[in-house]
């Protein structure tokens, strides 16, 4: 029984590893304006709002970025755990969620209320960071 569980867990782990988008290339045209990048998260002092961000992430982002945020390779979606992503400012992540990058398949989420987009940024910060597989990876 223990062996079966171990096998399942190993297969699951391998699945996650191989599903990760390690080949993602940053879109150099997707540049965040400086004033947008400098915006502060109005929910930064409200960590209790992160739970709502998690729910929104599961509804809106899991399809392409995966449950762990590692990015689904066949969707060409970024690994949100990478430090190259995590090092971006809250304002930059908010701008990318708001505008999307439609030429690369990332839709705009401006339909969501502003505070819900900031909740998503809060939740992105909780994703376990990993060392960069590629130094130039970024949010798609």
């Amino acid at each position, binding site marked *: 029984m223990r062996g079966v569980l171990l096998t399942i867990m190993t297969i699951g782990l391998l699945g996650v590893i191989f599903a990760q988008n390690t080949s993602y290339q940053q879109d150099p045209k997707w540049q965040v304006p400086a004033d947008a990048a400098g915006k502060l998260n109005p929910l930064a002092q409200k960590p209790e*709002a992160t739970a709502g961000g998690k729910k929104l992430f599961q509804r809106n982002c899991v*399809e392409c970025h995966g449950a762990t945020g590692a990015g689904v390779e*066949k969707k060409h979606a970024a690994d949100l755990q990478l430090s190259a992503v995590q090092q971006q400012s809250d304002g930059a992540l908010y701008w990318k969620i708001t505008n999307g990058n*439609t*030429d690369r*398949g990332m839709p*705009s989420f401006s*339909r969501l209320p502003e505070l819900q987009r900031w909740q998503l940024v809060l939740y992105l910060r909780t994703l376990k960071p990993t060392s960069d597989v590629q130094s130039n990876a970024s949010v798609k």
Partner: protein
Amino acid sequence: MNRYFIFFLLILLGSGQRSSAQESPYFVTYDHHLEEPGNLEIETFSTMGIPRSGQHFYAAPYMEFEYGVTGRWTSELYLEAQGTAGDSTVFTGWRLENRFRPLKREHFLNPVLYVEYEHISEASRIQKEIVGGGPDVTSPNSELHPIKAHELETKLILSSTVHDWNIAGNFIVEKNLSESEGFEFGYAFGFARPLASLASGSECRLCRENFIAGLEFYGGLGSTEDGFSVHNTAHYVAPVVSWQLSDNGSFHFSPGFALTHEGSPVLIRFGYSYELRGFGSKVAQLLGGKH
């Protein structure tokens, strides 16, 4: 035939994943939000006309299949019908609609270009838009249904997000390619916002965050034949509300009240939409594609 049915069913079942929905509550007005690429939204709606003296109650159901071709192009197929009390029920035709978003980023004012081809009969009463003087809701189906119309409809959609409010306006131009009727014009304008800005941490269906409410106005602006006048045209004001019932589905409701004596005095609209996430890639997978 059965093989195709099973194939389609498998795709539908395989696509039943979490989805954001957050659907626009409007029935007539379009905003700048397009379908996410690869997603298919199946919608079933009805327009019911409450009669005034000399008219009959009617119900006009229609189905929409809305597909996100790319991030800036959404295509939609409509199938529509109409049944009138004391008269008959008829299939009134189909429409193929395309919406294109020319600008890549969010701006204060976001334009969308809309082009639709309609192959419908004059008995059509879904009133997805009102142009000219509005539809004939008095003549019997036996007179209206044999008259077929090939129409080309274009819209300029301008839409803005101001804090949590969506404000959208549409200018409509329609040309009946089958008849020499000149160009007909119409408009739609709406604003709406979610009832809550923050998402709660728990899964709930009756939370305010799952409701979007607003108001829309729509009506005809005459035609080139009658001098672009609002004389004898129908105009409505309609509260709108959408309720996200599940991760994939939402319910929509809107009672429309006539502001003039043309058309039906009240239009009751309601419908349900269901989103199939990743539909395109699943079809491609089943057909051996790369996605």
